[in-house]
Every structure is written in structure tokens, then in C-alpha cells.
């Protein structure tokens, strides 16, 4: 079966500082992978490389078989990204934000309007569709961000510390949305500092340390993870 993301011999350095070193990784379609690791380990850099926001120093990233360096525009169509930043325009309404990003992904008018209405309903913002995003709470913005990330029906959803700034209620609403049937089909890769939530959601756990994958475990068998728990324990603080 073709992998959703296939990484081969991937290295990346910023200046003379190596951030990722010779990474090899295959992420299956539909899988929910959570990446843990200390600050500066290279987690966000890995996510940005998969998102085609930065180019690999060495090696390759294949998104559904498409080389992200050679065909970045085709690869980007497969990717939706949700960050701790909302990626939303405060002076536009919720619906206008979705319509704008849908247009940028080349969606037709009719399809886009249907999709925007559906997603606004899914994230519980259909009654606030005509209100400016600058008036929204952090939790509402994050829910709208999910809709924005999914407007073009990406097959891969990248989540970069999505719980940052969310209160417990907003976090649980966010989790319910992620688990709902509308969003189940996409492969998800989440970088998080939240061990508890990460374990609850994932099918697979990766731990990155100093630019290398030091742990790779599948759901049902995380026994080896205890070795890294101390490594990750400060993250809970």
C-alpha cells in the first residue's frame, strides 16, 4: 500500500546547526501519528518539511508519491495544516476566510460554498459565519482553523501543537471534532507536548531527539516508551 508520507534519508540544517539527521519514515494512510520530543529536537522542522514550507537539505519527502521538492504545488493540495497560530484573517468573517482559502486551493464556486457551509456546521460555527474572526475567542478560532485546514479535503492533516492556548473545554471540543467521521479519513500527524492527549488520540507514537527518531511504537504496544518517559517527563511540567 502506498504511504501517505514517505521520508528517505532526510537531513536539514539551519546554517551550520543540523536539525534533522538521516531520517527514514513511512506514515500509512489514515494513521494518526503523534510526535513527541524535547524543545529543539526537530519536530516542527519535520512538520514544515512535510508541509513543503521549507526544502530538505538532503534526502526526499514524498507526499502520496509526489516529491515535495520537485512538485510542491501538487503535494500541497494533499496537505492541510493546523498550527497554534490560527492562519485566519481577523478582518474577514468566518465564511469569507473559508471561501478565500478554498479559492486559493482551486475549488469551484458551488463546491466551495457547499463545503464551507458543511464545515462551519461541523465545527459548530454556522450561526457565527458572518461575524469577523477578530471577535472570536481562541477556542472558536481554533475550531474555524480546523475547517480552514480541511476546506480542500486534504488527505494529510498536519497538527503543530494545536492545544496551545486552548482551555480544557475547548480542547475536548477540538478532540471531538478530530474524531468525528468528517475528519476520520485523513492521515494525521501531530506534534505535541501533551503526552496524555497524544496517547489518547494516536495510532502511532514517534519520539524525536536531537534530530533522530529514537522511538517508534504502534498502538497496543507502547511498552518501549517507558524508556523515554523520563526524557518526555519535563514536557508535562
Amino acid at each position, binding site marked *: 500500500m502506498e504511504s501517505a508520507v514517505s521520508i528517505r534519508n532526510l537531513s536539514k540544517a539551519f546554517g551550520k546547526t543540523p536539525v534533522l539527521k538521516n531520517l527514514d519514515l513511512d506514515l500509512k494512510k489514515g494513521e494518526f501519528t503523534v510526535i513527541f520530543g524535547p524543545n529543539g529536537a526537530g519536530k516542527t522542522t519535520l512538520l*514544515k518539511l512535510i508541509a513543503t*514550507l521549507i526544502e530538505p537539505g538532503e534526502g526526499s519527502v514524498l507526499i502520496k508519491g509526489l516529491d515535495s521538492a520537485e512538485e510542491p504545488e501538487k503535494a500541497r493540495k494533499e496537505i492541510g*495544516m493546523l498550527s497554534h497560530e490560527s*492562519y485566519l*484573517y481577523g*478582518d*474577514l468573517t468566518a465564511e469569507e476566510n473559508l471561501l478565500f*482559502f478554498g479559492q*486559493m486551493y482551486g475549488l469551484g464556486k458551488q463546491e466551495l460554498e457547499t463545503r464551507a457551509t458543511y464545515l462551519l456546521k461541523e465545527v459548530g460555527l454556522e450561526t457565527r459565519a458572518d461575524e469577523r474572526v477578530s471577535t472570536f475567542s481562541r477556542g472558536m478560532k481554533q475550531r474555524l482553523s480546523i475547517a*480552514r485546514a480541511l476546506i480542500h479535503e486534504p488527505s494529510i492533516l498536519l497538527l503543530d501543537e494545536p492545544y496551545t492556548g486552548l482551555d480544557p473545554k475547548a480542547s475536548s471540543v477540538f478532540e471531538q471534532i478530530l474524531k468525528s467521521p468528517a475528519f476520520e479519513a485523513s492521515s494525521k500527524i501531530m506534534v505535541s507536548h501533551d503526552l496524555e492527549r497524544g496517547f489518547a488520540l494516536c495510532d502511532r507514537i514517534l519520539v524525536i531527539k536531537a534530530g533522530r527518531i529514537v522511538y517508534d511504537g504502534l498502538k497496543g504496544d507502547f511498552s518501549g516508551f517507558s524508556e523515554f518517559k523520563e526524557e518526555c517527563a519535563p514536557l508535562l511540567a
Partner: protein
Amino acid sequence: MIRSLYIAAKDLKAEFRTKQMFNSMLIFSLLVLVVFSISFGDFLGDSSKVEKLAPGVLWVAFTFAGMLGLSRTFVMESENGCLEALKLCPVDRSAIYTGKVFSNLVIVFLMEIVTIPFFIVLFNYSLDSGTLLLLGLVLLLGTLGFIIVGTLLSALTLSTRTRELLLPVLLLPVLLPVLIPGVEATAGVLAGNGLSGISSELRLLAVYDLIFFAVSHLVFEYAISD
């Protein structure tokens, strides 16, 4: 091209909802004209002196007011990580640049159109419709050159803490090839010279616009890369 228009439409919708940038630029350009017209009050009856001074005053007002707007061009994109969201879209990065040039051109040119009647009154001009159209053409070509370079430099200075200071320092020297023929062509139009009298300046402006648009289009991707 269509994606650039979407970006421009989004920018214009956001701008004309708040009018923050437009109002600031308009008030600034009007203040410059008023200050200069008061300073030159003694000369305003002498048409030969007005003809020498007024075109420069007009371009000073437009250039510095335009810089106010240009320094804000990418601020909206940097808030909430929107520039990253645009970079994630399946479009060539230069489409972002072209979209920004469109929206900036509309906003700055509109500010100029609103300012011109005040300029005519304050500096005692009486212009027919043909002269006004020619003045519009000069301003359009000059403003386009200003926006083309200013938008690129605005992107380049985005990640610096002193972008409001750095932008004019970098922009003004590069703008001289626009400002000199722009002022000369404006002086020619206001003196009543026809199209033939300012054709060499217009050609210079058009060539500047073409060359700098092509270069900026090519290098924009590097200007916004991490």
C-alpha cells in the same frame, strides 16, 4: 493570475472594511500639501515658481504617504501566521507578490485620486480634462514603479524589528529612477505640455516598471522564504 486577483480582492475587502491604511495615507498626503501650501504662500501667485515647486511637493506627498501603506502590506499576513497559510496554498509564491502589487496599487492610486483636487485648489491650478487624464497616466506609471519595488522591499523587511525605519532607507535610493522622471513628467503636464512633451519620461517609467516587476517576480520567493 486568478489566484493573485483572489489575494488582491481579499486585501481590498479587509482594507475597505477598516480603511486604516487608506485613511492614514490620505490624511498624511493632505497634511503635506497643506503644510507646503502654507510655507509657499508668498509664491502661490507667481505661476512660474509654482510650476517649479508643485510637482515635487505632489510626489513628496505621494511617496511618503505610500510608504506608510507599504510598511503595513505584509503585517496583515504576518498576524496569525497567514503568510505561512498562503505559502501552504498550491500556487506559485510569485502569485502572492502579484496580488499584493494589485491591492497596493488600487489603494495608493485611489488615495492619489482623492488628493489631486485638494492639490489643484491649494496650488491654484486650473486643469482641463485632457490634462487631468495625462496627469493620471503619469501618476499611474510612477505609482506602479513605486509599488513594484516597495512591495518587494516590504516583504524583505517583514521579519526585521525596525521595518518602518528600514523600508524608507532601502526604498528611496531605488526609487530615484521613478521619482526624477515622475516629477519631470508631472511638471510637463502641469505646464500644459501634451503627451509628446513628456513621452521620454513616460517611456522611462514604463521601462522601469517592466524591468523591476520581472526582477521582483523572480526574487520574491526568496524574500519570503524562512
